């Protein structure tokens, strides 16, 4: 594939092989010989980012001690085992929880208690949620060089876990975004309280407070926080970062190209250089649903001012082709999210850290002979 005339983004992407396709050889061209050019091109791919090295295993063992048992990152089992024991996917025994030093100051459940589940059985790893999140939340395109430097800004990443032989491994896709931990490690280290919990349990970023110490990203056990190292919104992704001398808060207005401004979601802050960002549970959609509910209640069109189940979908949830992502209010016992949380397959990633994550997962069941 190769593109020569596709505008700024598409020009000169890939290699053009159309000169090989003549009218005389429209579909099949015989007698073509390959010749190596000797050139090497590094492929900019995010697939190998966030790979867990073997040193992580030894660090985990050292942290948990001899008796400690790490929670499995991926819970999966076969259908036969699941039918025999509905908790087979979770392994033997319970993940030990260390006793908390203090009680949570709040249950973060007023008036809603937002949570999300991701069904690993349904996830096919298509990355649709990643793109939907990028479009919804004004996530900048960083360009090839910065992807090579591991600086992609996507709020969701698709982890891959392999099992079995190298030739034909079993693979599990795990979409990981901010889990909105009730006991959030990121909030405990922020020196300026730029990341705090709201009453409904979302771990919110106050962009104007952030001074970019990146302490939270270092303390995040899921590694889902993204730092805007350069002015990705203001620069062409294919060009190196350029210096900015003016006042940063005016940069969105003066330095983002007009056409690009029209691409942005007007409900979401355009973050510029030096600000940490991460999944917000689509807080703008939550706010919009809340406003609609309150206005409807005030005008007598509805009986409650609370957001009802199904009135609110996140961008990733809306786009997921297999509906693997469920988002909703845990305060409503009849909501889809509450049912999903009660499922036998439900588990919390990194449960041994006492995080109280609001985003949980449903174990994968393989339909094959064990």
């Amino acid at each position, binding site marked *: 594939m190769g593109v020569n005339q596709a505008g700024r983004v598409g020009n000169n992407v890939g290699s053009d092989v159309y000169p090989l396709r003549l009218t005389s050889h429209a579909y099949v061209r015989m007698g073509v010989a390959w010749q190596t050019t000797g050139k090497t091109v590094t492929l900019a791919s995010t697939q190998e980012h966030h790979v867990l090295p073997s040193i992580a295993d030894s660090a985990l063992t050292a942290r948990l001690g001899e008796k400690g048992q790490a929670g499995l990152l991926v819970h999966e089992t076969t259908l036969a085992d699941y039918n025999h024991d509905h908790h087979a996917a979770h392994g033997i025994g319970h993940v030990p929880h260390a006793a908390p030093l203090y009680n949570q100051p709040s249950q973060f459940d007023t008036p809603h208690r937002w949570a999300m589940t991701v069904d690993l059985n349904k996830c096919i790893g298509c990355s649709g949620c990643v793109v939907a999140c990028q479009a919804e939340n004004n996530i900048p395109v960083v360009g090839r060089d910065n992807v090579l430097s591991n600086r992609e800004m996507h709020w969701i990443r698709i982890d891959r876990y392999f099992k079995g032989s190298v030739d034909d491994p079993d693979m599990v896709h795990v979409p990981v975004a901010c889990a909105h931990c009730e006991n959030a490690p990121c909030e405990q280290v922020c020196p300026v309280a730029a990341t705090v919990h709201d009453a409904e349990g979302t771990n919110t970023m106050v962009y104007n407070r*952030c*001074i*970019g*110490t990146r302490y939270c990203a270092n303390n995040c056990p899921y590694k889902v926080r993204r730092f805007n*190292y350069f002015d990705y919104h203001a620069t062409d992704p294919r060009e190196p970062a*350029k*210096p900015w001398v003016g006042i940063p808060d005016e940069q969105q207005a003066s330095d983002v190209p007009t056409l690009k401004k029209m691409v942005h979601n007007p409900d979401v802050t355009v973050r510029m250089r*030096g600000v940490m960002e991460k999944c917000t549970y689509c807080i703008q959609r939550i706010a919009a649903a809340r406003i609609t509910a309150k206005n409807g209640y005030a005008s007598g069109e509805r009986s409650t001012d609370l957001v009802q189940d199904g009135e609110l979908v996140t961008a990733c949830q809306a786009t997921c082709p297999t509906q693997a992502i469920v988002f909703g209010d845990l305060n409503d016992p009849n909501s889809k999210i509450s049912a999903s949380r009660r499922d036998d397959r439900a588990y919390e990633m990194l449960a041994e850290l006492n995080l109280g994550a609001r985003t949980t997962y449903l174990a994968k069941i393989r339909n094959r002979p064990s």
Partner: protein
Amino acid sequence: MSSISLSSDGTPQELSRSRQDKSDQPSQWEQQAYDPRERATLVLGEHDFTTVTDSIAGIALGKTPTMWYVAMSVSLSLLSLLVVTIGYLLLTGVGVWGNNNTVSWGFPIINFVFWVGIGHAGTLISAILFLLASKLADGYQPLCRSDDDFRRVLCGDFPRLARRSRMAGLLVIAVPE
């Protein structure tokens, strides 16, 4: 012989007696090889006030050696390189240090720990030498201590510069909006 001798009436002998006072028993101080009451010679050699003044004032008042200009220009060029690179860092972003989304602190924390480690180690060694009354570093101690202080100031630069670029170090101080 006992190191503390008592007089006939049981009171300790005066320690401040002059060395010319030859009593029958030498005091504990006189038994030591090094008498702290006798000040060591501060200035060795054939020096009087004039020659000492000349040699010290000559550094400032005399003709500056050519090598001084050479060494100073090298130092200043390195310092200007520091100013240029910090300016580039502040205007372009912390990413010029090569940090990314899993290695958020690589370059700055390595340099911070390096300089703070050297600064603290220097202070500790200096303190140990002082406590042991070692004469090893006597002349160099003020220099070493001020050098350690500079290192600690330098190490503070890295967390300051590693912040969001717009106000850099100023953001360490709480500023009302």
